[in-house]
């Protein structure tokens, strides 16, 4: 099996796929957003609970491939407890990473970097992006920019 494939299917990704984090519904979400990729059928439900500009809790429930599920799980892990502004920075950074661009100065992607290999699989980029574009929709409803 080629090395590149290992770039895509990192052990961390497979682990998040098998046991997604943050996948339980929230009791009192402030916003619920459905994400859908018409090209392949991947779907997810993202819920946010936001207080005073901070994402208190969130949930991502995916029905999709390993990449979209892992991406949702990593998103949930990365953003819990983070200020909305920080979430927006990570969102921009994530998109830049998959477009093969340099991240904004000083931005730390942390665990999200394991999804960097997806950029070499153009048809799978949408899978990795789906939770993030859904988040973008959700944030624009909670707190319009």
């Amino acid at each position, binding site marked *: 099996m080629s090395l590149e494939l290992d770039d895509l299917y990192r052990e961390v990704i497979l682990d998040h796929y098998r046991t997604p984090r943050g996948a339980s519904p929230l009791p009192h979400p402030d916003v619920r957003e459905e994400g859908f990729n018409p090209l392949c059928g991947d779907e997810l439900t993202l819920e946010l609970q936001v207080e005073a500009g901070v994402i208190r809790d969130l949930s991502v429930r995916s029905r*999709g*491939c390993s990449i979209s599920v892992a991406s949702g799980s990593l998103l949930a892990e990365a953003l819990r407890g983070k200020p909305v502004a920080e979430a927006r920075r990570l969102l921009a950074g994530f998109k830049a990473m998959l477009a093969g661009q340099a991240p904004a100065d000083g931005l730390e992607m942390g665990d999200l970097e394991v999804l960097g290999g997806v950029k070499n699989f153009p048809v799978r980029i949408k899978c990795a992006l789906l939770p993030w574009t859904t988040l973008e929709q959700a944030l624009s409803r909670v707190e319009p920019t």
Partner: protein
Amino acid sequence: MSVSFPLPSFNCRVDCGKDFDAARIRADFPVLARQVHGRPIVYLDNAATTQKPRHTIAALVEYYERHNANVHRGIHTLAEEATDLYEQARRCVAAFVGAHRPEELVFTRNATEGLNLLAYAWGRAHLAAGDEVLISEMEHHSNIVPWQMLAAERGIVVRWAPIDDEGRLDRAAFRRLVSPRTKVVSLIHASNVLGTINPVAELFAEARSASPGVLAVLDATQTVPQMPVRFRELGCDAMVFSGHKMYGPTGIGCLVLTEALAEAMPPFLGGGEMIDRVTQDGSTFARPPHRFEAGTPNIADAVALGATVEYLDLVGMDSVRIHSECLAEYALEQLARIPSLTVYGPRDPRERVALASFYDRDVHPHDLATILDRQGVAVRAGHHCAMPLARRLGVPATARASFGIYNTRDEVDLLVQAIRHAREYLGHVA
């Protein structure tokens, strides 16, 4: 004037135990020499689009290098040649699918345009609020969305004939659904997901006896490349298919119509070629088929589609069908050996075209397709433009291996091996 394309001169040895001289056929398809990720390509995405024999490509080149001109109105030599080639292609393709007369065949861009043409031109002229269009749960989006758009505009009702758990159309339910309100029954000949070949002649007969004036429409996109299809024997008024799925070029498809239907149908697109007389006060229209071919047609690709059916005639559609049944049988057998797979559709290969959609309990179809691709194996993953069917099957997506005349049993083995590799790679028992 007649142009001859170089044609192969072999006799197909059709024998279920052997591979239908696939080596010779493979040599006709230049793309099969390609490598993908360092492996020879195993192209199993034929239901999406097939590869093209060199005869088809040569016909395009010959057309553009020798005969190119606009058709129908020209007096000069090239215009005459181009017109002859175009109308000759119409005759070839019409004969190939069992139309009575060449005029029964309208060139479209693809199957989708053919269905839209019917929904727009016939539908808007003949359907009113409350009229019913009956389709099945296994339709492709191209046989769903045009009717839904008409429903939204005109208040007609789209009814869905359900399928049973083996992926066959539910005959009893179908019979309950047809009534004098049924004005159109539009059915897929073979499902591009399940592989099921529907008994359409019987279904159309049932629909007609419940509703004598019903318009019977057949989406033969998946059967024309896999078996002999005779328009006049299937009991339909109209039939559509796409050139690019039958080894022909992209950008050309066909709508076959009975003379009676064609005469009763107003035009769809307006412009050059389809008119009789144009004045500031209004226009009159040409007779079919030209009435339905507005503007400069896709001349080169029509000509190349003509060359393609000459090629298929030579291979022999009866042989193609045997080959397709053999591959279907072998693929079903081999895939059944992977216990984590659910394979959809009827078990009997005689009821199927040569494709198999499946779902692996452990490996999502997209992951499977990506990992297979790295081994040179091209399959499709997704809803295959049949979302209502995916919902019926209860899965968001499936993986699909679909076979063409150049595929072999060895390639089925490679597919199965690649699936096992993929499972292993992702940490599951192969």
